[in-house]
Each structure stands twice: as C-alpha cells, then as structure tokens.
C-alpha cells in the first residue's frame, strides 16, 4: 500500500448500539481517483461514509486523511480538513432558498468572500437550473434539482475529497445519467470522489476502482472494469 493515499481507512468497525454493522473495513483512495463502493441495501455503505465524515463514531480502526488522523473527530472539524459529504437523500435545508443552501456549504470559508463569490458563480455555471431558481425555497425543487443543489453545496466547501451517497436514488433514468455525467466531469477537473451506489452498473462505469461491500465487509476490490466483468459481481449486483 502506498503511504501517500489521500484517504486511508484501516480496520474500521462500527456499531449501532450493541450491534456491530461494519467489520474491519479497510480501503484507500489516491488523490484524483474516482472510487465506487457498491453493495446491496443495508450492506453498510451509508454507515461507512457517515463514519468517515464524523457523523457516526467507530469503535475500532483508524481513518487518516491527507496524512492526519481524523478518527472520531467532530464532523464540523472534519469538513474543515477538506472532506465534503453529500448525504443520502440530499438533505437540503428545505425552507431556505437555493442561494442560502449553497452559501451554507461555504460556511467554513465564509470569511473569504471573494472566493465564495467566484465559487458561487462557478457552481451556478455548472448547474444553470439552480441559478434560474436561486431565490426559491429549496424544498420546492424536484428531486434531481435537489441532488444538484446538494452536490453544489458540498462543492462550496472546497473539497479535497467528495463523498457522494446514492446520488442517483429516486431519480428518473435521464436524470441519473445527468448526475453521473456531472460526477465524471467533477472528477476530470481534479476532485477526488468516493461514490457509494446501489446502481452498481452506472457507478462502476464511471469509476476508476471499485469495492464491493457485503453485510459490513469488503469482499472484493479491483479496477472498476474488472468488477464489471467479474461473474460473481455481475450476478449479484448487475443482474445479468
């Protein structure tokens, strides 16, 4: 294992109450990579992301990011080190406007108003629909628009690593393609991405590497195209 990995998760185990739901999970992400974690509903994908971003505590294991140990740090401090998390189900601040939601994404960087303004302009360029609706309550946006808002909001945190939890969930097929196109575009612009998806086919199609998570354990890890062609993975997660 090269030691210069951007994110390194080592032997991570977490529990909900007395029940251990993740067992000895290890993974790493190099800078600039797009890594996908695929697995069935309930495999522990969301828990893994929530543990990395500090929303959930782990009872053993180690998470290091950009060389420093962030295991069990408070979520609001982990953001400052450069991990931005787009949570499952989008979680926009429904009664607040689109613009306010985005600006809250830059909460930790709000002192640098010049950067915030230029980044806001960039996000509005990336998602023209958000610019059109900037004054609207974000709760009134469609699911796809809310997903774009959630991604834009995370980008305003100036991520070194973007965690994406089920960005395609509940979206129409056309929108799913649009979202994955955006994910790919972001990655090609240099954002390192850890993508968690039930839609394994789409996720592996855009990813560099993939991990398969099953009942809280990593069972395989390989370059994404190998996983796409792996018979066991195809049967279990791709359905053909």
């Amino acid at each position, binding site marked *: 294992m090269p030691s210069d990995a951007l994110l390194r998760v080592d032997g991570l185990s977490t529990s909900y109450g007395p029940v251990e739901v993740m067992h000895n999970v290890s993974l790493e992400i190099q800078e600039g990579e797009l890594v996908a974690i695929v697995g069935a509903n309930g495999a522990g994908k969301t828990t893994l992301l929530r543990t990395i971003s500090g929303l959930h505590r782990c009872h053993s294991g180690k998470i290091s990011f950009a060389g420093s140990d962030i295991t069990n740090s408070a979520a609001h401090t982990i953001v400052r080190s450069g991990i931005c998390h787009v949570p499952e189900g989008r979680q*926009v601040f*429904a009664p607040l406007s689109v613009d306010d939601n985005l600006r809250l994404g830059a909460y930790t960087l709000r002192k640098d108003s010049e950067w915030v303004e230029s980044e806001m302009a960039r996000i509005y360029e990336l998602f023209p629909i958000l610019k059109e609706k900037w004054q609207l309550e974000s709760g009134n946006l469609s699911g796809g628009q809310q997903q774009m808002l959630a991604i834009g909001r995370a980008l305003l945190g100036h991520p070194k690593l973007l965690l994406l939890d089920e960005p395609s969930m509940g979206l129409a097929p056309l929108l799913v393609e649009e979202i994955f196109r955006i994910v790919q575009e972001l990655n090609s612009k240099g954002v390192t991405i850890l993508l968690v998806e039930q839609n394994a086919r789409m996720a592996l199609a855009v990813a560099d590497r993939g991990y398969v998570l099953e009942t809280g354990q990593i069972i395989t890890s390989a370059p994404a195209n190998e996983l796409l062609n792996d018979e066991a993975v195809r049967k279990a997660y791709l359905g053909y």
Partner: protein
Amino acid sequence: MFDQILQFLITGMTTGAIYALVALGFTIIYNASDVVNFAQGEFVMMGAMSTIFLAAGDNGLPIPLAAATSVVLVICVGILLQRFAIAPARGASVVTTIIITIGASIFLRGVALVIWGKDIQAMAHFSGEIPIHIGNATLLPQNLWVMGGTALMVLGVHYFFHHTMQGKAILACSYNRDAANLMGINVGLMMLVAYGLSALLGAMAGILVTPISFTSYDAGVMLGLKGFSAAILGGMGNPMGAVVGGLLLGLIESLAAGLISSGYKDAIGFIILLLVLFIRPSGLMGRRSSDRV
C-alpha cells in the same frame, strides 16, 4: 370615547410589545431545538430583578450599566440552562423537555426568592415620569422606551436570521442537524447562541417594562404564559407571527379590560387564543410544512 380607546391602545401596545419579546424568545429556542422553554418568563424576571439589585443603594451602578451587567448574567443563565439541562436530554420527547424547562423555571424562581425575597420591586423610569399628552390620552416616556426598544430588538433579530450567515446557520441546525454538521457548523455551539439570544431578549423585556409594571420573584410565570400564548396565536415557529401575536394579545387584553372588565382581561385573552386555535390550529401566521421527499 375616542381618547379612551386611544389610551387603551397605548397601554395595549406596551404590554403587547413585552409579550412579543417573550414570544420571540420562545420562537427562537423552539426553532433551534424543538424545545418549548417555559423558563422564558424567568429570564424576564431575572433581567429586571438583577438590574434593580445592582442599581440599588448608594453604591449602586448607574441604570444603564446595571442593565447591561444583568443582561450578560441572564445570557449566562440561558447558556447554562441549555448546556446542563437541555443538551443532556437530546433526543428526548417534547413532553420530557417541557417538564425539564418547567423544572428549570421553578428552580430559577426559587433562587430568585432566596436572593431577592418576596417583595414587589420597583425600578426608576429611564427618563422621568412626565406624561406626554396626545389629545386626552397620555403616555409615559417609558411607554416609548418599551415600544422603541422592542422595535429595535425585533428588527435586530430579523436581520440576524435573514441576513447573516450565523443566523442562517442556526436555522440550518433546526432544519437538518446532520446536514448542518456536514457544512462545518458546530451545532452544539449554535444551540448555546440561540439560548443566549433568547435570554437576552427576555432580560431586555424585563428591564424595559419593570418601571411601568413592577416585578417580583414570580412575575415570570404569567409573562411566560402570555408570551407562550402569543407565540401560539401568531403561529409557533414564525418569528414575525410571534411579534404579531404578542401585540395582538396585548391590545385585546387592554381593550377587554377597558371596555368590558379588567377582571376578565386574562380570560378574554385566552378565549381569543382558543378560538384562533379552533379555527386555525397552526396559528394566524403558521405555515403548513410542505417538505418534498
């Protein structure tokens, strides 16, 4: 008759302004943490009592300094309340937190009783007691202090929540705690800020109105109830609703006392509250939630 009505309106606006501040305090805490803080009236009482105490005697502080000191003290009480009574019960049901805040209010009243005794206390008017005449109606300079001070604080609160990132960050915590955390917002700290702000509003209300209405260790009970009613009347959770509810409740009470009977003024206020709730359970300006999943 017109002069008389005018007089009732002046009195009503003054009481209403105080109700509005108390209601606003309820709303801020409710919005930030889903807690109905029944110790809100005690903030009012403590603001007034400690100001009187600090300004008393020959070596007493001048009123502005005493007021500023006691506001800071009450803010500390608000923060301690959050930190040691509310925060440990995170995730508890609404009823549990209500019982906690009622307990806190009884405790604070007890402390006030021990420190300041049972007597009704008076505070000097800020700028004299020479009445100002409007037709045959009169108002005291203190009435203007109450209304002006309330207006300033309402505008300040509005500005804070609508035009500053700190204010919006507090709202974000109430809308979605986890997501707020993921934005780098220190949710625990924001809760302390909300309670502190609420305590500040309460203390200011107490200091402004006490020259007119006097105070005592248990003055917070009725003010808390009235402020809570005002918040419900306007629509719980809506800050401007709280202000409108407070002013309306004050006006209704004053008119009821003047035109019908002062003995019934509280009853009439609460009857109107019940009627509004029967017809519009979400309050006058309450919003129906329309979250899209």
